[in-house]
């Protein structure tokens, strides 16, 4: 397998009124073509910063990102992003939202008929062909995110970046979306980096799970290879000892090794404590 993306020792320092704040320190990660990688970690650990640097939306302070032998310096459709809150243009229909991306990326390389076919093909892929002429405010949250994924896929990216794509959805919708994503992944075999909070989601979808340490100066803590057979079925896996073992490995990392320590300020720490309690509640459920 060939390395498609090389995240090479990136560091990120933000200037703040209290002096420079090191968000990331020496994050190093190599991703193979067709691989599905999850980034997991406590909130505030810089997962999104890593993704934004790969997307080109942020510039790393040190180190760099190399995609197919070329350094990433600006955003581009070869690294399509699926944002957490869908980010569809509210004045365009689902079809038009995908169309904007397709026309911009392919331009004159596709004829009118080809463009139309390609848009419809991608909307069909995410099961949104029945509502493609509806506007975002007329469809549910899950459907919006489907269109967001269709728009990203339609750009034919080298690598698909997903920033907590299902984080804002309810549990049932989220399961549906995960199944859909696995189905699409089976068909297209895209290279994907996905940020998630959800341990089950990470184990179910990924080939590798990259667990990040807590900030400041967050970095890659451990990398867990998920060698479960594909296609994966959530019901069968629920009792699979290998799955249960992998899941507890991630949980152990998050809640034993990288337990949130109360350092920053009293109020902030309290906030984080509540958040981690929420997380463990979710994990327990």
């Amino acid at each position, binding site marked *: 397998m060939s390395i498609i993306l090389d995240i090479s020792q990136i560091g990120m320092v933000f200037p703040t009124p209290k002096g420079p704040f090191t968000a990331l320190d020496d994050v190093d990660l190599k991703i193979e073509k067709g691989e599905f990688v999850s980034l997991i970690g406590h909130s505030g650990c810089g997962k999104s910063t890593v993704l934004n640097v790969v997307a080109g939306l942020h510039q790393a302070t040190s180190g760099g990102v190399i995609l197919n032998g070329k350094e990433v310096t600006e955003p581009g459709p070869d690294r399509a992003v699926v944002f957490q809150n869908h980010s569809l*243009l509210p004045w365009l229909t689902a079809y038009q939202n995908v169309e904007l991306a397709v026309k911009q990326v392919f331009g004159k390389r596709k004829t009118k008929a080809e463009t139309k076919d390609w848009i419809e093909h991608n909307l069909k892929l995410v099961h949104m062909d029945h509502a493609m002429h509806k506007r975002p405010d007329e469809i549910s949250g899950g459907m919006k995110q489907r269109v967001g994924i269709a728009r990203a896929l339609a750009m034919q990216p080298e690598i698909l970046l997903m920033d907590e794509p299902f984080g804002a959805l309810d549990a049932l919708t989220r399961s549906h979306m995960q199944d859909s994503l696995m189905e699409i992944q089976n068909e297209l075999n895209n290279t994907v980096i996905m940020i998630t909070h959800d341990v089950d989601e990470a184990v179910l979808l990924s080939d590798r799970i990259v667990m990040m340490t807590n900030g400041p100066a967050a970095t890659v803590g451990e990398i867990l290879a998920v060698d479960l057979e594909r296609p994966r079925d959530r019901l069968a896996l629920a009792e699979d000892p290998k799955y249960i073992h992998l899941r507890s490995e991630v949980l152990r990392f998050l809640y034993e090794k990288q337990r949130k320590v109360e350092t920053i300020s009293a109020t902030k720490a309290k906030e984080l404590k509540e958040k981690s309690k929420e997380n463990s509640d979710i994990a327990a459920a």
Partner: protein
Amino acid sequence: MSTTTSINETEPKIEWLEKAIQQGLSLSKMIAIPAVGIAVFLLLWSIAAQNIDTSLGKFPGPSAVLEQFGALYDEHQAERIKETAFYERQEIRNEKRMAEDPGYSPKVRAYTGKETFLDQIITSLITVMSGFALAALLAIPLGIAVGLSKTLNEAINPIIQIFKPVSPLAWLPLVTMVVSALYVSPDPIVPKSFLNSMITVTLCCIWPMVINTAVGVASIDSDLVNVSRVLRLPALKHVQKIVLPASVPMIFTGMRLSLGVAWMVLIAAEMLAQNPGLGKFVWDEFQNGSSDSLSRIMAAVVVIGFIGFLLDRCMLQVQRWVSWDKASAAR
């Protein structure tokens, strides 16, 4: 139809009837409550009017004003008849001269009768729309530029903040002098007085549009901007596809505010500068000082109010057609 109707058949009919009655009730409520409000207002107005004595007689009550509406319309009709008669006479005269002397080139002179109330309304509407259109043409691109660039915003913001609260009456002398100095043409396309009013309107109503457009553009969801960056939309396309549609609701808010300001400013400008229009009508009546003057001014006040209201409604309707965000165009 069979003579025996079962219960199942009658029930939906009763339901339908009930619904109709309820709808009728809510409709009559919708009409009745404002009607009561207006009736109470008219009553208070006429009571108050009877108790105010001015040097021009009693303050006009609703009936006197209504009467003047009729009178103003009749005057307008009479003036129109005079005008057609004038043109007919002129044509006959020219034909006669042509018949006597084939080499004669006929002179056509425009009718220069008094402007009626309706003429003044139309003049005012044309002036306000031109001033507003010019302001929009300048304000929206400027607002977009200011909203997109923080540097430009910092540079221009103090100027906007200082000029925004300036009264039209302060601008007017300056505008008049500048127009007189610069607009010198032996055969002007539009009269100077029109330019004076129009430019004063523009100067006063440009600011709410600039500010609202800039705020609308600056507050675009950063995710949408990121979408544009990922797609590498060129600057012009970014403005056209993302910035403009996203800020349409705010632009319209600014336009509605501006149009309201424009209409108020126009009346004041016309009054002070003796430019034709409703403001001049009010001023002329005030100077005229006949026993009808106050009721004619009151009629003008009502018309000014109605036109202001209609202008706002028109703008709202345009917003409904243009904007994707129906919620922001609700009221």
